[in-house]
């Protein structure tokens, strides 16, 4: 562990829906450059935790800080612009009637200049170049001018992930990036994500059900069950942990 302050600091988060404790006093930190995997059976509280971190759901207790700044009550667009937090959603979320290039440019255009400047100025100064670099990085070049809606599911999933990186975020939260993606595409996605992480030193938190994907991508893994962390460690440690095996396979 370095002495540097953590990028993401989650402290004592609790959230209940009616009588059900979805998240129960969860604390963890994520350091710069880490890829943290968040796994757990359905209903273990992963998505609720994600929503609390992103300020979209107000936790009953606890606080969340990104680079030392509180997240609570911040609008998603400000979270993205001011704190450099990017996210993807569990469901596919691209803009189907816009081209791949426009999808990527949109993801970056609000992060520099003023609102009025975006209307009056030379519209895409520099943005097209960095969008093209990102498109090349994710190897979507042959699809650059296609409508996003005409891409295959796997390609859209890749575009969805790529959009999160356009603004050069500090912290990226990926909600099931591998969901419904075929095996060859999965290798490609994993390779791109880990290469990006290595080259840019950015920090990821990944929710994923695909164990193979999580184990090979992440540097550290948190296991959630019934709203609490039941195990934490490197992929090897977690894989060998009897508590985890029991939580997943049942006793």
């Amino acid at each position, binding site marked *: 562990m370095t002495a540097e302050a953590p990028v993401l600091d989650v402290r004592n988060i609790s959230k209940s829906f009616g009588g059900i404790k979805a998240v129960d006093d969860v604390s963890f930190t994520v350091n710069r450059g880490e890829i943290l995997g968040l796994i757990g059976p359905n209903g273990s509280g992963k998505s609720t935790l994600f929503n609390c971190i992103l300020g979209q759901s107000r936790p009953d207790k606890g606080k969340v800080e990104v680079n030392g700044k509180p997240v609570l009550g911040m*609008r*998603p*667009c400000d*979270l*993205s*612009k001011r704190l450099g937090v*990017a*996210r993807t*959603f569990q469901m596919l*979320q*691209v*803009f*189907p*009637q*816009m081209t791949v290039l*426009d999808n990527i*440019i*949109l*993801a970056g*255009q*609000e*992060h520099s200049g003023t*609102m009025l400047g*975006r*209307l*009056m100025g030379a*519209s*895409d100064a520099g943005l097209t170049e960095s969008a093209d670099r990102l498109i090349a990085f994710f*190897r979507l070049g*042959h*699809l650059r001018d*296609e409508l996003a809606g*005409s891409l*295959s599911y*796997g*390609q859209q999933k*890749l575009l969805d992930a790529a*959009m999160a990186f*356009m*603004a050069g975020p500090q912290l990226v939260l990926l909600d099931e990036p591998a969901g419904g993606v*075929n095996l*060859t*595409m999965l290798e*490609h996605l994993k390779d791109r994500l880990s290469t990006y992480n290595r080259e840019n030193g950015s920090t990821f938190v990944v929710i994923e059900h695909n164990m193979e994907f999580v184990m090979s991508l992440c540097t550290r893994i948190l296991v959630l069950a019934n709203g609490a962390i039941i195990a934490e460690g490197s992929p090897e440690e977690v894989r060998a942990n009897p508590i985890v095996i029991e939580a997943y396979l049942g006793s």
Partner: protein
Amino acid sequence: MALWRNLALVAGLVVLVLAPFTQATYGTYVLCSWLIFAIAAMGLNLTLGYAGQISLAQASFMGIGAYTTALMTMAGIHWIFSVFAGMGLCFVVGLVLGYPALRVQHHFLAFITLAFATLAFLVMRNEDWLTGGVYGLVGIPRPDFGPISTMSQRSYYYFTLVVFLFAFAGFRWIVRSPWGRAFKALRENPIRANSLGVDTRLITLLAFAIGAAYGGLSGSLMAPLVQYIDPMSFTLIISLKILLMVVVGGSGYLFGPLLGAGLVIMLPEFLRFAESYYLMIYAGLVVILMVYCPTGLIGLIDKTAAAFKAKRVARGDLGQGAQL
């Protein structure tokens, strides 16, 4: 492709410039209405076609623009000041009307804008001291620009054409700027747009306000054209007519409302021979178009053009097998 498009644009412009010479006064008046309604439809196209926010109140904004221009020009103020006042007023009212859209969408929003349209109509009809009530305002002057008068129908047509071209250029600028991209993103997926840094609240309000300002501009041109306005010119029926122009022309396309307004304004003129059956034929044609081409006239043109073009591979990646 770009060459063909530019040639078509130049040809279109030439047609617009020469059109009045083929027409008598009434024909020129119809052409004028076409351009004026095209401006109103352009505004609604921004709100609805690009930003995805339904509004049934575009004629009310035309009304606000028309009454502002009528009252100011009748008081001796030059048209050019009245148009900025009218557009400014519409911008502010449009901004306020945008607030409900932050909470409700689709048919709920439609009803809220419907309520606003009714309210605007009632103000125009009942506030006699300001609007002349049911009798409206008579004797609205046409503007002079130095030695150039717009009193003749033909000169008013050219005046309208110039304003229209400015409005069109402005519209094209907006939708091709990052704002246009943000409007589309709002239409396609507001939640994702917001998570990517788009201030969806501001963009929604702007979509309403700019659309409304275009409505105001169109009203400011309408008042001196007919030189008489009354509340019946700005009812819900007219709003629905503008909506029809946007949908029939091709919602979300730059040239859509222009073609749509052309069809909605001109078709009844061409159907005069059918006398009392014209509305039936008109309605039938619109239904057929919408069934076979839901993307409107622009979609129809695209389809036709695609039929003559070499086929593209639908999915370029298939050739590369399972690489991706």
